[in-house]
């Protein structure tokens, strides 16, 4: 009887460990700084979900551009950001180009959070390696620090990237 109880406890423990979702190691590293945001302060839950969803957005975008699959964009993109990426993917398909991103991480800084909590603007300083391939041959490869201006809006269960614009580096 006691052995059965031990086995049952061990099985429960194993099941609970198994059911815990492991941290996604393939996600790019995103760190959010929200000290200077205004006029609304970022809620604790939002301060976790925004960098998580932004990381998923980049992972999705990298895969969509590498495999020329615009259907992947639906999950984390909306509005102009989604339209622009879909157009680029359509052009990539037409010309036989693929883009490969090797993501080395993002430093996100929240700069505007609307009073009603329905829009957040962020600045992203990203370090990425970009490879452009034509028919499988690398025609361009560069390691760059890029600065993005990002607009995110809340969706049903996540934050979506609504606008993603590369801007020249601005030194404060």
């Amino acid at each position, binding site marked *: 009887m006691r052995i059965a109880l031990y086995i049952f406890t061990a099985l429960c423990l194993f099941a609970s460990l198994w059911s815990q979702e492991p941290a996604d190691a393939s996600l790019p590293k995103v760190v959010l700084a929200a000290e200077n945001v205004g*006029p609304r302060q970022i809620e604790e839950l939002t301060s976790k979900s925004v960098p998580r969803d932004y990381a998923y957005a980049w992972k999705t975008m990298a895969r969509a551009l590498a495999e020329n699959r615009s259907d992947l964009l639906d999950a984390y993109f909306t509005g*102009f950001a989604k*339209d*622009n*990426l879909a*157009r*680029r993917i359509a*052009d*990539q398909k*037409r*010309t*036989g*180009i693929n*883009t490969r991103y090797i993501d080395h991480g993002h430093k996100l800084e929240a*700069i*505007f959070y*609307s*009073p*009603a909590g*329905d*829009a957040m*603007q962020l600045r992203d300083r990203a370090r990425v390696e*970009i490879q*452009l391939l*034509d028919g499988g041959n690398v*025609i*361009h490869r*560069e390691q760059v620090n*890029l600065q993005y*201006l990002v*607009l995110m809006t809340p969706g049903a269960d996540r934050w979506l990237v609504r*606008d*993603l*614009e*590369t*801007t*020249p580096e601005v030194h404060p």
Partner: protein
Amino acid sequence: MPRLITFLSLALLLAIRAHGVELRGPAQVKAGSAFSLSSNGSGEATLYLVGPASVSKRKVQLGSGIPVEAGEIEHAGRYVAIVCSGGDCSSANFYVFASDASKLSLLVHPSRVRVATPNAISAVAFVFDKFHNLVLTPSDVEFRVTPQQGPALTHSQPSSNGVAWVRMTSATKEGPTKIGAAVADASELRVVRQVASDACNLRIKSEWVSGKLFVQTDPVRDCGGNNVPDGTVVSFTKTDEAGKTTVDAPIKRGIARVEMPVSGEARIDVASGVVTGNELNVAGAR
């Protein structure tokens, strides 16, 4: 020694070949403005132009200006131009920045608000150019509040990173108010409905009709004299020797009315939300 000279010569030749094509362009270009890339070398090459929302590939002649059409650079962001000739590729980067402000996206919250509530309404305007690029250079956004009665109020606010916003206190009188934003020739308008605040001076009276007691409120208004919206619940509570009975009734056409069976002495009081009104003492059926 001859081997070393041959090796160095080969390396030099390779270096010259690798840097045979050089591509130059401006650091920044306005969206939708045609310009030319310059290249050295000669012969035919393939030009790739990769932008945030477009990728093009075409044959070009080296050694002369390579025109980039206005339609190829409508989206703001970083572009990479690459020319490849005989297996060697050379690239140049440039940024496209937004054109002049010509579109607005306006978020106004909430759509329904109580009167005289400080900083209850917010309006956020995003400034875009005609290609839907966020205009990052500051633009003056004019916010305009037009109440149902009275003159419009305007306030100019410069955008920062393409965003301008204001916060407003709702008016003291109920009714729809129009909130607009304008930049250059573009404007957007939203309507916010301002509704009465909590009831104020809630009063009830009773009357007997065909042996039944009816209790009704006076017209329910807030402290500013605005009619509390129909549908707002008013609670009537009767306390008699049998105990306490509460009946909820929504306001209809400005008043709430209920029938209350009464036997013996009873006290009736009224409340709406956190506001309480007067009490009535009534006695038995007539």
